[in-house]
């Protein structure tokens, strides 16, 4: 297992895109946090004071954007290999396929944890700068240091693992990136809207991305329950992906 892990570390750390995506996943949401916080507080000041409880824009609202950027790293774990024929070299060097699959998943998790922590830190800093620019002084979003921050990291990790599993299943990197995003921003909101009309309150528990986004902001068991459902959805995709990886030609 150590060999495939070393291989994966060199693989993931020697492509510029990994570092570029980590920077993008942190800086873009941080910039947005800064801008939104500044606009909301500045507008509030002109109207006689910031809206009550405005504070900073909050990192949770921008997490899906971070996840959408960083999921590319997850998709690339298999996508790059199939696209460029590297998978044959990988499996000639490490013929046992399960350790290769697990090493890829573990390395994605490790890198995305670091990237997500950096992104959340950048968003908190962005929010603080935004409030300072609006004349409110530096307002630090302290919840990021607590369980909401931890759930935010888990959310981004599982989102990226979804892209990882879809790419492993389909051997198609663009699909691995696009499908989670399309489901999160298009398909699930439509299903939610239909479910709202039909009064299907339980649907938020079944929809992976909607539920997980709600989970980051929720509290207690509800929060962890949503993230657990998100993880289950990943496993539903990852198990057939692993079985096919073991059985398919390369």
């Amino acid at each position, binding site marked *: 297992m150590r060999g495939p892990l070393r291989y994966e570390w060199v693989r993931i750390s*020697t492509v*510029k895109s990994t570092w570029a995506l980590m920077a993008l996943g942190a800086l873009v949401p941080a910039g947005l946090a800064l801008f939104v916080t500044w606009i909301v507080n500045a507008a509030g000041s002109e109207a006689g004071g910031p809206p009550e409880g405005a504070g900073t824009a909050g990192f949770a609202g921008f997490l899906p954007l971070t996840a959408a950027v960083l999921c590319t790293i997850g998709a690339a774990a298999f996508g*790059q290999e199939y696209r*460029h*024929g590297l998978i044959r070299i990988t499996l000639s*060097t*490490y*013929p046992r396929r399960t350790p290769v699959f697990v090493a890829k998943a573990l390395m994605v998790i490790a890198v995305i944890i670091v990237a997500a922590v950096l992104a959340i830190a950048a968003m908190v800093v962005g929010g603080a700068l935004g409030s300072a620019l609006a004349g409110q002084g530096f307002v630090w979003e302290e919840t990021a240091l607590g369980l909401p921050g931890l759930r935010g990291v888990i959310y981004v990790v599982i989102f990226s693992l979804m892209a990882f599993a879809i790419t492993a299943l389909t051997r198609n990197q663009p699909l691995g990136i696009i499908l989670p995003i399309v489901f999160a921003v298009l398909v699930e909101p439509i299903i939610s809207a239909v479910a709202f009309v039909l009064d299907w309150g339980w649907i938020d528990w079944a929809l992976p991305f909607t539920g997980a986004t709600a989970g980051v902001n929720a509290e207690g068991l509800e929060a962890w329950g949503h993230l657990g459902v998100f993880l289950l959805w990943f496993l539903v995709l990852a198990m057939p992906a692993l079985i096919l990886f073991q059985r398919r*030609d390369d």
Partner: protein
Amino acid sequence: MAIVAQGLGKSFGSVRAVDDLSFEVPDGVVTGFLGPNGAGKSTTMRLMLGLDRGAGSTLFDGKPLIQHPHASEVVGTHLDARPFLPGRTAHDHLRMLATDAKLPKSRIEEVLAMVGLTDVADKRPKGFSLGMAQRLGLAGAVLANPRALMLDEPANGLDPQSIQWLREFLRAYAAQGNAVLVSSHLLTEMQLMAQHVVVIAKGSLVADGTINELVSQRSDVLVRSADSGRLADALRGAGVQVDRDGDDGLAVTGLTTDEIGRLAFDAGIALRELTQRKASLEDTFLELTGDAQDFAFGESS
């Protein structure tokens, strides 16, 4: 460490790509793996390495590759012309492959120097020519100094000097007691490079032996005489195969020129010509695989 392939088989839908194929890649010599386009060479190589799933097994030093703790020390492979990420430097590509055998940086630099890529070690290979890409692929294959090499068309895109270097390198590598399997369409090159050949057509084995064995089976002696009928009777009487070759010529298989000359002299038959005709590997290959080419050309006008 010989490679032994036993009963390899693979179908793609209704097409039988590889059919009950068994052969051995011996130590100490370069084994050429020949066959027309679509014969199943690449599929066979992938089956041997466990990359494709199919019937049969391949043993490396008596064990399947998956049972060796460090596969990169067992067999080095080069199966695709550009087997690397265009954005990862040549050095980093090899660093990734060095993780299995925990090879030091000095070994990476050594193989880069060996294939003449030291100057571009830190460049991204997206701009590499086909020849440079082949060199990087070869560097990756020999990186862990494996006891066997499996190379699919490694000479494609190489200039004559590089081909000569590759030939000498692979012969020297095999001479150290290693098994080397090389597929190629360049038959004249293969005749210079390989001592042993495995020929397949439509996924089945059609020949397996040394080049000398294969070629000598298809060599004959051309003998011309004004009395070719009587000469033919005399030769057939000696129990050899005799075929007509032109008006006064006979193609004789199974006797040397010396033996035929002696037989004619004893029978009192004057000869006009007595020539040893040695088939080339190309002749032998074409004879063995004659109608087995997929997508064959039409007749040239």
